[in-house]
């Protein structure tokens, strides 16, 4: 799990172009949206693409993202349980 979390942080930084953020700056349990990283709705869509591209997970309803993207940890848990690759 720890490894998946680190891997995810690196991927998030890359796909969301968080140029000045390092993996260790991201608190695994902190909310991804709103405060903190300052992500927005387009970033959420980009995370949906990331899950499909890297882990083979297709999200039918984007509203599901709300629960999944609560934090890097919840995202990692969801990926662990549903990954196809």
């Amino acid at each position, binding site marked *: 799990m720890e490894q998946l979390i680190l891997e995810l942080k690196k991927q998030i930084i890359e796909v969301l172009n968080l140029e000045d953020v390092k993996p260790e700056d991201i608190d695994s349990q902190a909310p991804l949206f709103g405060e903190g990283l300052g992500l*927005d*709705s*387009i970033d959420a*869509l980009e995370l*949906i*693409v990331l899950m499909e591209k890297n882990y083979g997970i297709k999200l039918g309803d*984007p509203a599901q993202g709300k629960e999944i993207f609560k934090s890097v940890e919840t995202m990692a848990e969801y990926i662990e349980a549903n990954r196809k690759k």
Partner: protein
Amino acid sequence: MTICVTGIGIISSIGVGRQATLDSLLTGRCNIAPIAHFKTIHSDLVSAEVVQSNEQLIELLGGGLKEPLTRTALLGMVALDQAYKEARVEEQRPQRVAFVSGTTVGGMDKSEQFYLDFLNNDSKNQYIASHDCGRCSEMIADYCGHFDIITTISTACSSAANAVIFGANLLKTGRTDMAIVGGSECITKFHLNGFNTLRILDKEPCRPFDASRAGLNLGEGAAYLVLESEASALKRGVEPLCKLSGYANFCDAHHQTASSEDGEGAFLAMSGALQNSGLQPEDIDYINAHGTGTVNNDLSEGIAISRLFSKRGIPPVSSTKSFTGHTTSASGSIEAVISILSIQHGFIPANLRFRNKIEELSFVPSSDIGLKVDVNNVLTNSFGFGGNDTTLIFSKYKKE
């Protein structure tokens, strides 16, 4: 300067021409259905396609047209021809005539079709030159006649509304004597797939201003308005259909694609247009909303409408995208024409498929089909990506 509308032309999924459009609006007939003409892998989506194929459009135009012909151009020709004839431009030609057309996808439909040919051989290269937005406007203009100024506005879903503003400014600054303004857009893979990646397409027919709304349906079409000063209309002996009494464009300055929570851009555009027209909120008899049917737009726009109008009572509001789908760059002029029809025939176009009120809003849209009321002033909104928010106000014409 009093700016009058002396001709209109329209084509959309609910009909060709003003009469067919009016009949559909008055009887609640819409044509949001599984995608038919357009080739896409997203066969599970519904859209508001124009019924006619390209071949049928060419037939409508009297045939004998030379390629390249993109669908956006063909739709535009059909609409422009109607407006041109209604305003009797040919018979009573003013000295200078401008054509201002909005489109964002331009000739993308053909580029998608011939892209691999472009790469592999050069035989279809006439469609390279027809790809850009400006070429589309030129093709449309060339079909109808001679224009002294031809220009193209591309601000996504507010393009056609901004074309109206641009045309009005050309008149007010004395750069033209007549401006034919509006927009045209066909469905393309480019924006269908793009909107799909943004997850804002509803698989069901859209439900603007409904609590259960889940996105928009793409539509296609074109509409144009002939604008000229009252003096010019009188001189040419053409009866004005209505006045363009006010307009404004403001920036929401919030997000690239999403609208702000408090609808500030929409609020500024609507108040700016009111100010420009010299009207008060209570003078507005009908609001033709942008109302795309996305969760974000309808809430944000609804909040802006409440902020501006609730003091004196909110007038009937509807989104006619429930009829025509979201015709993107053409929507501003298609909805302007619908607003003009509402003034001329005294009715409120319905907001179809409304069932449940949006909790956060203080009003519900007008869902009665063919509701007859006297309509003097209509406010119509068009908002584009980039926070580009435009409001137009049309008013009944009374001879001074």
